[in-house]
Every structure is written in structure tokens, then in C-alpha cells.
């Protein structure tokens, strides 16, 4: 009888037929780093970071694309593995504009380093995902020094023509996660690998800018990008977001009820991400409204005070004045014309708790069943 057991770093683990080494590891919370793998998509093996050593095999194997086989003995951090990862990380760093502080500079060199950063960057800040970059993390983790490595000139200009999304090709490591997200998760089929060889680039159809393409700005590509190649335009407008608080909640657009994480700084939402990839109903996917349509929350146009119409004009009033007036008017109309002369429209946008109180108010206080909402509209 098949045992369906493999050994990873001396841990005996069961696997289901068809599972890859990476999947077994992830299920058991064993960290195998990868920059190109995206759950629920077909592996591309472009980054070659998830290499592991399998006893009895002369070459390292890609754990994302190698199926677990009975009695396999796997090492995920052997010296051979580490060396290979260092080499591949180094290649990725050299492939583009990765001018973060992973370069092995010394204090004397700081000024010239910054100057070179500014020169090549054309702006006053470092990479917008500095400190939140999977490649940078790995470079630290595996102590990959890039001193002396020339900053690679990118032939493609940063695309800033779009709402919401900035595409900086100089930082793109061509891992292909965005393409997978677009074609296999969201199935919007807007982007793909274009050109070839040294010219390889992630493009929309005919290499159009996103806003003139089939892109629907769901932003799934930003969410999966491991580096700073795809970033929300807010990062550039409002500066870096540090000390943000993360709050899990439910999206307020449409009835799908996507689970979202609000990132809050100084009482303001600065970013929204899809919640956990394992969490229904959306498995971390979002649409353009859910991801980017939050500016209404902090809009200066929000109503902040009660208004009462006086002499045909609405003027600000205190809560007491407004509530007294509402209670008095509803009471007198009810008395004079009967409860059914009153109507109440509750809302499909407010919470269950709000709705419950609204119908209780209508039925128990106004004593009418004239309550409805915009379900039909």
C-alpha cells in the first residue's frame, strides 16, 4: 500500500497525490521562498528561488513544479540550496533597478550611493515598496551583496498614464505573477508576456497603456507583484505608508461580500487589499471599486452636521434640535393622519443591525408596516 509520505527537513509529512513539494511544505508551514509561484495557478518556474535538494537527485528541483513522490527526502535550506538561491537572487537584483539598501555600501559611500539612486530614479524617493519587497527580503535573508553591480538601464519608461496603477518596468523581475493573476485568477486576460529575449516585457494587447486596453483595474496584479514594479498611484501621491493599522472588514460595494483589509493611517484609509487567499468568498480577489473606490470615506463632502430646512434653505442645526423636530413632526402626522400616512425606506447599504433597528422603529414606534428599501432598484 502506498504510504504517501515524504520527508522535508527531517519531518515526515503526508501528501495527497498530485500535490507539489511546495504545496506540502506550505500546508505544513515550512517556508520555501518563491517569487513567481501563485496559488491556484499553473507554475511558471521563472524565478528559480524555490529550488530544493532531493536526496538521490544530482540537480536541485523546483519545488513549485515537482510533484511529491513517495519516500522523497527533501532539504529546503541545504548549503547547496542556499548557494543556488543566492546566485538566482543576485541575477534578479542585477536584472533591473533594485537600488534599495541591500547594496553593500559603507558609510563613506553613502552620498555617492544616494546620488546614484536619485540619478537613476529620477525622483526623490527610494523604491516605493522599500521594506515591503519580497526580493529585498530574500536578499537580506540570504545575504546577497550587490556591491559593484551596475544599475541596469531599463529601456521601458514607467507608465503613469493610468488611474490607480503605476507600472515601473525597471523594477519588474518578469516573474509573471501578474500575468497569472490576470489570466488564471481574475480571467480578465488583459496582460501577457510580450516581445522576447532582452526585450521581454509584460504588456497589454498591442502594448497599449492599461487604460486603453482590456484591463479593468481590479488591481490583482498589484497585490501579487513581489517587487515595486506595480504599485498603487497613491504611494506616489501621498508618500510612504508607515505605521498603518490593518482592519479586516466586508466590502461595501455589491452583494458578493468580499473580505477586505483596510490599511489605516491617521484615521484615513490609505490602501485596501483583498483579505486572505484562503478566505471565502473572494479568496483575496477584489474589483476596481472594492480596491480603489474608498476615497468617499474621507471625502470633504461628507455630511458632518444635521441640516434643517428653514425658509426654504437647509441650515446647520444641533442634533437635539434636529431630532426634536423629527420626533415632533412624525408624532403629529401619525396622530392626525394615522400611522399608515408615514413611510420608511431603510437601506441595502447599511448593516443588519441598522436595518433591524429601522424596522423595529417603523413597526413598534411609528406603528406602520410601511417599510421597504431599494432591493428592487
Amino acid at each position, binding site marked *: 500500500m502506498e504510504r504517501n509520505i515524504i520527508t522535508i527537513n527531517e519531518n515526515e509529512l503526508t501528501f495527497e497525490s498530485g500535490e507539489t513539494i511546495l504545496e506540502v511544505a506550505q500546508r505544513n508551514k515550512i517556508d520555501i521562498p518563491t517569487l513567481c509561484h501563485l496559488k491556484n495557478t499553473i507554475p511558471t518556474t521563472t524565478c528559480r528561488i524555490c529550488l530544493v535538494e532531493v536526496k538521490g537527485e544530482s540537480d536541485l528541483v523546483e519545488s513549485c513544479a515537482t510533484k511529491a513522490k513517495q519516500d522523497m527526502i527533501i532539504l529546503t535550506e541545504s548549503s547547496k540550496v542556499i548557494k543556488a538561491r543566492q546566485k538566482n537572487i543576485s541575477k534578479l537584483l542585477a536584472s533591473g533597478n533594485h537600488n534599495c539598501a541591500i547594496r553593500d555600501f559603507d558609510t563613506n559611500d553613502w552620498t555617492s550611493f544616494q546620488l546614484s539612486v536619485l540619478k537613476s530614479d529620477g525622483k526623490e524617493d527610494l523604491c516605493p515598496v522599500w521594506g515591503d519587497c519580497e526580493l529585498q527580503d530574500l536578499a537580506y535573508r540570504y545575504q546577497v551583496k550587490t556591491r559593484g553591480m551596475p544599475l541596469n538601464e531599463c529601456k521601458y519608461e514607467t507608465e503613469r498614464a493610468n488611474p490607480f496603477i503605476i507600472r515601473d518596468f525597471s523594477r519588474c523581475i518578469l516573474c509573471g505573477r501578474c500575468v497569472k493573476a490576470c489570466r488564471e485568477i481574475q480571467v480578465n486576460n488583459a496582460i501577457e508576456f510580450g516581445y522576447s529575449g532582452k526585450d521581454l516585457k509584460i504588456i497589454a494587447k498591442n502594448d497599449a497603456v492599461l487604460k486603453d486596453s482590456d484591463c479593468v483595474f481590479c488591481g490583482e496584479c498589484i497585490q501579487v507583484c513581489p517587487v515595486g514594479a506595480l504599485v498603487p498611484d497613491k504611494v506616489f501621491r501621498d508618500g510612504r505608508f508607515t505605521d498603518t493599522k490593518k482592519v479586516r472588514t466586508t466590502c461595501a460595494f455589491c452583494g458578493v461580500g468580499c473580505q477586505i483589509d483596510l490599511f489605516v493611517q491617521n484615521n484615513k484609509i490609505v490602501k485596501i487589499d483583498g483579505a486572505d487567499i484562503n478566505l471565502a468568498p473572494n479568496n483575496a480577489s477584489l474589483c476596481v471599486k472594492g480596491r480603489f473606490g474608498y476615497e468617499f470615506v474621507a471625502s470633504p463632502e461628507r455630511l458632518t452636521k444635521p441640516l434643517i430646512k428653514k425658509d426654504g434653505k437647509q441650515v446647520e442645526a444641533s442634533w437635539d434640535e*434636529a431630532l426634536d423636530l423629527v420626533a415632533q*413632526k412624525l408624532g403629529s402626522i401619525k396622530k392626525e393622519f394615522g400611522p*399608515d400616512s408615514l413611510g420608511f425606506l431603510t437601506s441595502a447599504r447599511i448593516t443588519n443591525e441598522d436595518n433591524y*433597528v429601522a424596522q423595529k422603529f417603523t413597526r413598534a414606534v411609528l406603528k406602520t408596516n410601511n417599510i421597504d428599501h431599494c432591493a428592487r432598484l
Partner: protein
Amino acid sequence: MTNTIADIETSDLILVIGSNTTENHPVLSSFVKRAVLKGKKLYVIDPRRVKLTDHADKWLRPSPGTDIALINGMMHIIIKEELHDKDFIENRTENFEALKEIVETYTPEYVENITGIKAADIIEIARQFAKASVASILYCMGITQHTCGTNNVKSLANLSMLCGHLGKPGGGVNPLRGQNNVQGACDMGGLPNVFTAYQLVSNDEARNNYEKAWNVTGMSATPGIPVTEMIHKAFEGELKSLFIIGENPLVSDPDLNHVRKALANLDFFVVQDIFQTETTKIADVVLPAACFAEKDGTFTNTERRVQRVRKAVKPPGEAKQDWEILCKIAKRMGYEMSYENSQDIFKEIASVTPSYKGITWDRIDKIGIHWPCPDETHEGTPILHTTQFTRGKGLFHAIDHTPPAEEPDEKYPYILTTGRVLYHYHTGTMTMKTDGLNMLSPECFVEISSADAQRLGLDTGSMVDVSSRRGKISAKLKVSSKAVDGTIFIPFHFAKAAANELTNAKLDPTAKIPEFKVCAIKLEPATA
């Protein structure tokens, strides 16, 4: 939805009817598109060549308002070819003979005549639907917003029951709810005829239980009137006061001219909202409310999953929680209604709502639960009707096709159908505050086929006057491959050229839903 969203991907065949899923439920549409990637069949039935048709095995295009004829036509074939699920019909349903009798006349040729869909396509989809091991029906307002909306839905239920595709994974009859908490607002009794969990107000026992729970007497046993009738009553002067939370009927309701006059006729008009809208502007009192990101509470999604809403930021200025405002008014009217917090309210909801009884905020902290959830050990009900229907046996309804209330004629030769675009939400009060969304969808447009545009001698960008018997708007023409000759689409989001100036306020007699999806209009080059 009878089934879950995740369930869609496990279906063998998906039938999407009257739903522009990629624009109105984008994340849900990805489940449909992924199913297709995995080799599942997809049929899309819609008067427009919506984006989802790109992913479909076939797009069937009925004339607007002819869905019953199409569905009856499918059932005609299924019964004639003995493809129906005889065991399911025998054990789980009743009234099959009446259905059989009525669909008898709906031959493919007869249906082709009404719907404009080729007889061969009707036969193909009927066979595929019946032969699928399990098929899921997804529908939206293209089905419901008709004077025959209720019958459209019943017809879909007929079709699903006929093939035994109900009560199992990957199947079901699945309405996609449009707004974030439309399911919850209905569950909570935000309807004229029911308390929470659809307990009838006319039922003495239910009403007595509520009177006891709420410590009141003399609650009305007479069902109230729905929003669409409230507008009529206000127009006629019978409804004196209206209190609205978070709605903008002066953009979203049919026949705006009528709505405007009706609201102006009120003695007292209160609107509680987060922004000034077309509607708040004419109110006697406007009360500032907190928005979703400023609230603790729950929403219930389209798959009946009760999920947490959490406060992330403070409300602006003096804006308050919606429930808190109502409690304060109640107190001033002599009824003590107070809660420590929103969770307190939820506990009361669970105590009076059988389908929510087993749900607590603790239980849904990580992941939501599908109602019905009758007790705290129950895991919720992802799939409905697995062993029996709510009434016991599933009832087949024998339904005949009825034409829309207003059809094109010489004076108003085009059909108008309204709907939404990806980048905006309802009347745009929220989405139009984000520049990027406005950039992607800046203004109203009149979607037209290239042949129709040519006939009018106009092209994309031309300003046109669009008029119906009720009103007139001007907007830019947009020639699109989505449009079919004779049918015009206009999104209703935009107050400046509000499609609802044109729409017909004729209602479905049961659901009281307006016929937004069909009315007659004419187009002319703009005069101004």
C-alpha cells in the same frame, strides 16, 4: 443564492441569464470564467453582448422581455425528449402535469418567433442544460426588473427542478444580489410584509412574539406598501411623511418626473445619508450618518453568508451610527430603545430570527456563516433545499409568456434597457468621489449598435436627445459591439443625464419591481 459562490466553479454547466456579471459582480464573475478555463460549459442569455459572452460556449439573444417564452421553450424540448429528471419530479415536486401542459405549445418555432432566438439554439441549450450532471443558474436584474419579474424567476425554478439541478453542489437557482447588504436588509424585515427571517406581519403568532420581545402593543397586522407604491401614495397625497436612509430615489427610481412631484408633495421629508444627494437636497431634515468603514456590525452577502463589518476610522464631524439616530428619535417619541453597541443589537436579532439564531459575532469573527443557522452548534447551510423545499415539495408553476408593458412603436421605435457599469455603484454618490473611477467612466452614454447609429447618421460622441413618453435626457452616443439593433442601453448612475427620466414605472404585480429593462424610446440628434 440557493448555493454558494465557490460552488459555481464545481458546476458542470453554468447558465447566466439577465446578469452582466463581469461589471456588476466582478469577483463572482471570475468564478464563472475559471470554471470555463476548467472546461465547464457556459451559456449566456442576455439582450446585450456583455463581456461574459466572450467566455461563453454560446450567447443567446432574446428580445428584451421574452425570457418566459425561452425558458418554456427549453422545457418543451426537455420534456418532449424525456430528458427531465423523473425521480426528482416524482419525489421532490408537485404540479408537474400543469407545467407539462402549458409548455406543450412552446415549440422551438413558436419560441423563435417570440424571442428571436433560432430554434436550433433553443434545442441545443435545452439538451445541454438537461444532460449536464449538475447545472447552475445565475440570474440578476435582467430577470427581475420586468412586469413579469416574479414569473421569470418562477420559470427558472421550474427549469432547475425539471432537471433535478436543485439542492446539490454545483447547482441551484442563484440570484446575484446587487447591493452589499440587500440580502441582509430583506432578512432583517426591511420589507412591508415581513419581520426578520420572512415571518409574516399578518401572522398573529409572529406578531405576538414581536410585541412581547419589543414590549409594545397594537402593532399593525396589515402589510405595508412597497417603495414604488409609497411614491404613488405621496403623489396622491395619502402618504404624508417619508424617512429615507441611504437612498437616492431622485436618480434610482423609475419615471423621475413623477418621483419629483411625489416627494415635493410630502408634508415632512427626512433623509439620513453620508453625502448630499439629489434627494437630500429637497429634504426638510438631513441627518449625517456613519459609513461602512466607521461601523461595527454585519452584512449578509448574496450567498446568505453573515459577515463582520469592522470599524476602521472615526466618522467625520458629528455623524452618527444609523441605529443610534433612530434610537434617539424613538426615545423622543416615547419608546425606550437603547443598545450598548451594535453587538447588543445582533444578540437581539438572533433571539427573534430563527435563521440567525445560532450566529454570534464570535462565531463569525474569522469567517462568515450561511443562514439558516438554527443553533450555536449548527455550521450553517451553504446549500438550500437539499432534502426538501421550504414548503415541502417544490411547486411547478404553469406560466405563460406576457409581453412587456410598453413595446416600441412608430413614435418610440427603440427599446431602452438600463443597467450599470463596472466603475460606478448605484447613483454614484460613493464612487463618483474617486477621481480614477470618474476618469474610467466620466459620464452617461447611450449605447447603440453600429447599424442603428448609421441609420441615424450619427457616431460615437454625437450628442443625442433620448425621449420616452415620460421624459427626455441628452447624452453622448457610444457605438458598441455590445448593442444589438433596436435595443439601446443607458446606465442609470448619472444624475446629469438620468436614465430614469425615461423609464416606465409599471410594476410586477407581486414583487412590485419596476420594468427597468424594457421601455420604448426615440433618439434624435441633440437640439441644444
